[in-house]
C-alpha cells in the first residue's frame, strides 16, 4: 500500500516537491551563512573586546604641557576608565616622520613641525560594556573644550556593532524561522487542496489519514534532506574560501570545517527541528479538516 500511496502523492505533485527542494536549498544556505557571519563577527569581537579604546586628540601647544597633564589626571578619575596612555607630539612625529614629504623638512625645523602635532591620549574602558558610557562622557568633555577631538578606532566600532547586533540577529532569525513555517503551511495546504480528491477517496475506503501524514512527512523530509546536504556542502565551500580570503581562519584559530564539526550537536538539533519537527506539526495541523 505504501508504494501506491507514494505514487499517488508524487505522481502529480513532483513539481511542487522540487519547488520545496529549491526553496529549502536557499533557505538553509542563507540560514547557515547568516549564522556563519554572526558567529565570526562575534568571535572577532570577542578577541578584540579587551583591546577597544578611544583616542582623544588634543590640539595643544608644547607649552601647554601642564594642561594636558591635568586633563589626563582628570580622565583617570572617570568612572569607566581603566588605563590612559599619552602619546606626546614628539612620539607621534617619530612614528610618522618617514611618511611625511621631504619638502617639509627643507622648509621647517623639526621643532616647528612638532608644534603642529597634537597629543593623542588612548583611553581604555574598564570593560567592553562601558565603552559606550565612556564615549558619552568624552563627548561631554569635547563639547566644553574645542581643542579636543574624539577618534574611534575602526576595530572599536566593529566590536561595538557586534554588541548591538546580538539582539538584532536573534530577532532576524526568529522572523526567518517564522517565514519557513509559513512556507511549510502554505505548501501543505496547497498540496492538500491539490490532492483533495484522492485523499477523500482513500478516507471513504476506510484508509487512515495517518498513512497520508507519514507519506507526506517522508517526502518533505527526503526532499529537504537532499537540499540540506547540497546547500551545506556549498556553504562550507564558500565559507572556507571567504575565511581564507579575509584571514578569519588565522584570526579565530579555527576553520569553517572545524567550526562545523565542533557544532555537530547544534546542527543535529537544527536538522531535526527544520526537517522533522516543524513539518510534522504542520502536516498534522493541515490534515485537521479531514477529521470528522
Amino acid at each position: 500500500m505504501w508504494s501506491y500511496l507514494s505514487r499517488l502523492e508524487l505522481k502529480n505533485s513532483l513539481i511542487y516537491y522540487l519547488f520545496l527542494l529549491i526553496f529549502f536549498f536557499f533557505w538553509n544556505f542563507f540560514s547557515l551563512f547568516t549564522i556563519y557571519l554572526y558567529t565570526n563577527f562575534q568571535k572577532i569581537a570577542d578577541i578584540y573586546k579587551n583591546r577597544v579604546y578611544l583616542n582623544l586628540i588634543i590640539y595643544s601647544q608644547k607649552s601647554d604641557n601642564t594642561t594636558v597633564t591635568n586633563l589626563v589626571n582628570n580622565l583617570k578619575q572617570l568612572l569607566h576608565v581603566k588605563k590612559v596612555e599619552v602619546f606626546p607630539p614628539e612620539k607621534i612625529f617619530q612614528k610618522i616622520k618617514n611618511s611625511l614629504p621631504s619638502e617639509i623638512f627643507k622648509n621647517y625645523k623639526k621643532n616647528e613641525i612638532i608644534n603642529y602635532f597634537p597629543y593623542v591620549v588612548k583611553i581604555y574602558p574598564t570593560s567592553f560594556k562601558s565603552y559606550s558610557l565612556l564615549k558619552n562622557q568624552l563627548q561631554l568633555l569635547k563639547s566644553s573644550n574645542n581643542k579636543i577631538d574624539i577618534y574611534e578606532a575602526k576595530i572599536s566600532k566593529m566590536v561595538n556593532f557586534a554588541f548591538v547586533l546580538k539582539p538584532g540577529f536573534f530577532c532576524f532569525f526568529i522572523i526567518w524561522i517564522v517565514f519557513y513555517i509559513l512556507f511549510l503551511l502554505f505548501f501543505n495546504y496547497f498540496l492538500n487542496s491539490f490532492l483533495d480528491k484522492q485523499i477523500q477517496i482513500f478516507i471513504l475506503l476506510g484508509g487512515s489519514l495517518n498513512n497520508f501524514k507519514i507519506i507526506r512527512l517522508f517526502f518533505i523530509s527526503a526532499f529537504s534532506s537532499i537540499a540540506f546536504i547540497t546547500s551545506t556542502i556549498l556553504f562550507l565551500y564558500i565559507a572556507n574560501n571567504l575565511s581564507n580570503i579575509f584571514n578569519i581562519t588565522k584570526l579565530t584559530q579555527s576553520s569553517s570545517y572545524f567550526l562545523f564539526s565542533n557544532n555537530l550537536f547544534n546542527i543535529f538539533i537544527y536538522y531535526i527541528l527544520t526537517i522533522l519537527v516543524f513539518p510534522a506539526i504542520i502536516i498534522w495541523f493541515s490534515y485537521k479538516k479531514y477529521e470528522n
Partner: protein
Amino acid sequence: MNLFSFQNVNKIYPPYFKALININLEIKEGDFIILTGSTGAGKTTLLKLLYREEKPTSGEIFYKNISYSELKTRQFNQLRQKWGIIFQDYKLFPDLSVYENIKISLILSGKKFKNMKIFIYEYLERFLLAHKAQKKIKELSGGEQQKVGVIRALIRDPEVLIADEPTGNLDPDSIKEILQILKEFHNKGKTIILATHDPIIINQKLGKLIRLKQGELINNVELFE
C-alpha cells in the same frame, strides 16, 4: 437491532436548498433497501450522510444505536473498512491501474488472502475486465470505470453494501451479473442499501422500496421479503 437509524435528519445546502427534509428511517441488519425517486430527490445525499461524506444540518444518524457524532475518526475508518461503497461518480484513483485500485480497497479492508492476485483476477474475469487489469483508470470508458467501482466494493465481501446508482452506465449483461451478486449477498444475510431509479432493479422486487420526493420520504413499501 437497528443497524442504521435516521432521526429527524435535515440537510440544507447553502444558501437554502433543502436536499433532505425531516428524514426518519430505520434499517435493520440483513435488510435490502432500495431507495428510489427522480433525479434530485435526495437519494445520493441520503447515502452520503450514511457513509459520512457529508454531515446533516440537523438531526441524528445512529449506527447500532451509537450516534455518528460520538464516533471518532479512527472508529469511523474502521467502520468504512467493513463496508463496501459504490459511488455514483465512481471515485477511483485515475493514475492507478484497475488492478491497483481494487488491491488498495482489499488491503484497506484488512482481510487476509492467500493469493490476492488470483482472487482479484477472478472477479475481473467475472465482469470481463481481466484483459484491462493493468490499464490506468483514465484509459477506461465510463461503463468500465463503473464496473471497477462495483468490483472494488463487492470484492471486500462487506458487511454492509451501500450502492449509489451502480448500474447507471452498464450494459444489460453486466446489470444481470450485478443483480446476481446482490442476491447472493443478501442471501448471506448482509445488508444492502441501494439507490437507483433503474426499473430493471426495482421490478426485481428484491427488498424494501423507499421512495423519496423532493427530499421527503413519501412511503415505505415492502415489496419482497
